[in-house]
């Protein structure tokens, strides 16, 4: 009896020994190739089909163009956020930087005209780089640091704008044209986001810099030991987040012609994070695809429209929004039974 028992346990042990690596291999294949690339697109298309069936006029009436144009600032912020998430950090200040950029743009377009967007982009990139420098060299948790700088940027925006809406006084035509003119009925601001996404994809996929960033997100200690320049790459990721935030600020001005410290832009932080996550970015770092983030942003812009189309009360929108964020991340997240989730 005992002999048979010990034999079976032996076999059991052997099969499990075999089974574990095989299963792990399967999972990793599934994770990299399959769901992560297609998931965000499937979700967007599924919601879109539901909307199209319930309100056929939406697709015919240029609804897609509306979604694309309203998603432009979210997309730009989400791309920056995705780059920071990829190195295993988070940037809670990027929407505030974007808003500050929009206010600076509205203030400076009159006096310095064409130079203004350049100044704004330089400034926002520098703001992001400062975040990155502190995170990399003082070795503080990015969550707490960017929460702190979020407060600082918010206050600067309030003071710079004098707590009121700032309108573009003159020379606004060039910027406004970004929203007015477009390709395939979709404003240039959205295509700007797509262009940034493609460039970031190339950066991440084919360059040493991008591979290094992903390596930091996957295992920072290993990256340090492999002579990856972790500190400069982290600074670069945060600087890119600031740069994207500056572009989002430009998109806001192009769309609205004005910026207010409490208006469009101040509520973009959480939708942008949601867009990055729905777009398949891992919150713990090392997994990102800027191209699917585009669909993440489109999904975020589609949810409010979809809820109204399905006939859900406008008041329930944020409820649905919250539930969708949880559900989508729960569906697309790669998880491992033994892993610890914080």
């Amino acid at each position, binding site marked *: 009896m005992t002999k048979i028992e010990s034999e079976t346990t032996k076999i059991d042990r052997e099969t499990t020994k075999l089974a574990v690596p095989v299963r792990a291999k399967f999972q990793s294949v599934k994770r990299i190739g399959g769901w992560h690339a297609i998931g965000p697109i499937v979700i967007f298309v599924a919601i879109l089909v539901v909307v199209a069936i319930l309100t056929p006029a939406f697709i015919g009436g240029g609804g897609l163009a509306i979604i694309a144009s309203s998603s432009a600032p979210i997309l730009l912020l989400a791309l920056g956020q995705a780059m920071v998430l990829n190195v295993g950090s988070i940037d809670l200040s990027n929407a505030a930087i974007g808003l500050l950029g929009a206010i600076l743009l509205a203030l400076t377009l009159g006096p310095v005209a064409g130079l203004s967007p350049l100044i704004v982009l330089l400034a926002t990139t520098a703001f992001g780089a400062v975040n990155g420098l502190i995170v990399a060299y003082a070795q*503080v948790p990015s969550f707490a*640091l960017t929460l*702190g700088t979020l407060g*600082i940027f918010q206050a600067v925006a309030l003071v710079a704008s004098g707590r009121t809406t700032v309108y573009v006084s003159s020379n606004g035509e060039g910027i406004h044209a970004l929203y007015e003119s477009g390709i395939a009925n979709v404003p240039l601001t959205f295509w700007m986001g797509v262009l940034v996404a493609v460039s970031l994809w190339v950066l991440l996929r084919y360059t040493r810099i991008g591979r290094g960033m992903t390596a930091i997100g996957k295992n920072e200690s290993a990256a340090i030991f492999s002579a990856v320049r972790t500190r400069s790459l982290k600074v670069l990721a945060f600087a890119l987040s600031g740069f994207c935030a500056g572009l989002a600020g430009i998109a806001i001005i192009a769309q609205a012609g004005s910026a207010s410290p409490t208006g469009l832009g101040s509520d973009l932080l959480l939708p942008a994070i949601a867009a990055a996550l729905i777009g398949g970015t891992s919150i713990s770092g090392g997994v990102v695809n800027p191209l699917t983030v585009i669909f993440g942003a489109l999904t975020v812009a589609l949810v409010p429209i979809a809820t109204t189309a399905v006939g859900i009360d406008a*008041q329930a*929108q944020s*409820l649905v929004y919250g539930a969708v*964020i949880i559900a989508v*991340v729960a569906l697309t*997240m790669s998880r491992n039974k033994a892993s610890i989730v914080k």
Partner: protein
Amino acid sequence: MVHNALSKQSAVGIDTTAIRIRESVIERRARFRGLAEPLSLLMALAVLIVVFSLLNERFLTTSNFQNVLTQSAIPLIVAVGATLVILLGSIDLSVEGVMGATGMTWILLSANSRGGVDLGPWAWVIALGVALVLGVASGLIFTALKVPSFIVTLGMWYVGLGIATMLYGTDLLPRLEDEGLKGWTSRISFGLPNSFWVALLVIGLGILVLRSTRIGRVTLAIGNSETIVRSAGLPAFRVKVAVFAIAALLSGLGGILATVQLDIGSPTVGSGVLFIVIPAVVIGGTHLGGGKGGILRTVLGVFLLTILNNGLILSGVESSYQSAVTGAILVAAIVFAAWSQRDRLRVAK
């Protein structure tokens, strides 16, 4: 002597005296470090109080003192829950949503200007029940589905706000009509505002839970190493759900008190609380990674931020600068705390 005798008895015969001395030095240093951080916070508080009382004679009056205590009561209550969650190594962003949902439920079930039912004390029970459901839902999704707490509670923030907005509907804003409750939070009994007494009770219970209950001890252990907790057979799953439930209950209590203080029901009753609570926990010295910190430190953090904001307003600084001050202090605190531990190979997320 005894040590020497013991080491001689051991089979290998290694002299462990040096190791023991080293251990006791490390222990003493750790004890000193545990004291030094709260002490430096207390000193910062003292400096602030001295500076502000020199700048404005209204600062050091009894009425302003009571004012500061009333202002700090709600953040204190919410921060106790937030500390527990952060000690797990997780984060609770749903604070403002839970506050809104609970506050709206409570006022609609109490005597208010919209009429409707007046359930009296049952309104408290049902409203806190809503908070409990939201908290347990967060906890279950976090533990069972393994969705990071950042996302779960971010979603739950919106869900709470959605519930509050639906309850608010399109009617007139519900005004509190119970004369006994109006202004209850800032009324003084035994020298302190009522809401502060509630906060003191919550802080006391929180410390008790953390120090001497299984939930509290396992919470700290999970923050240190969940792998070890699990392999030791401790109930990590249940404790995590319980901590999120407690945090949501405290947010809910804060939401009801904020509604009483505001006199009106509003879905955004909790707006801005998250930006006080999380910086306060971090400034207090609780590690965002979990396992290290405590409730009393958070209390110091909340006081530091409230006194600073109160003092700045009394000194005539525009309120636009408030968030910058909170932010700058947060940045300074974390840089200060991390500076001595800098190491090329250290990983800070």
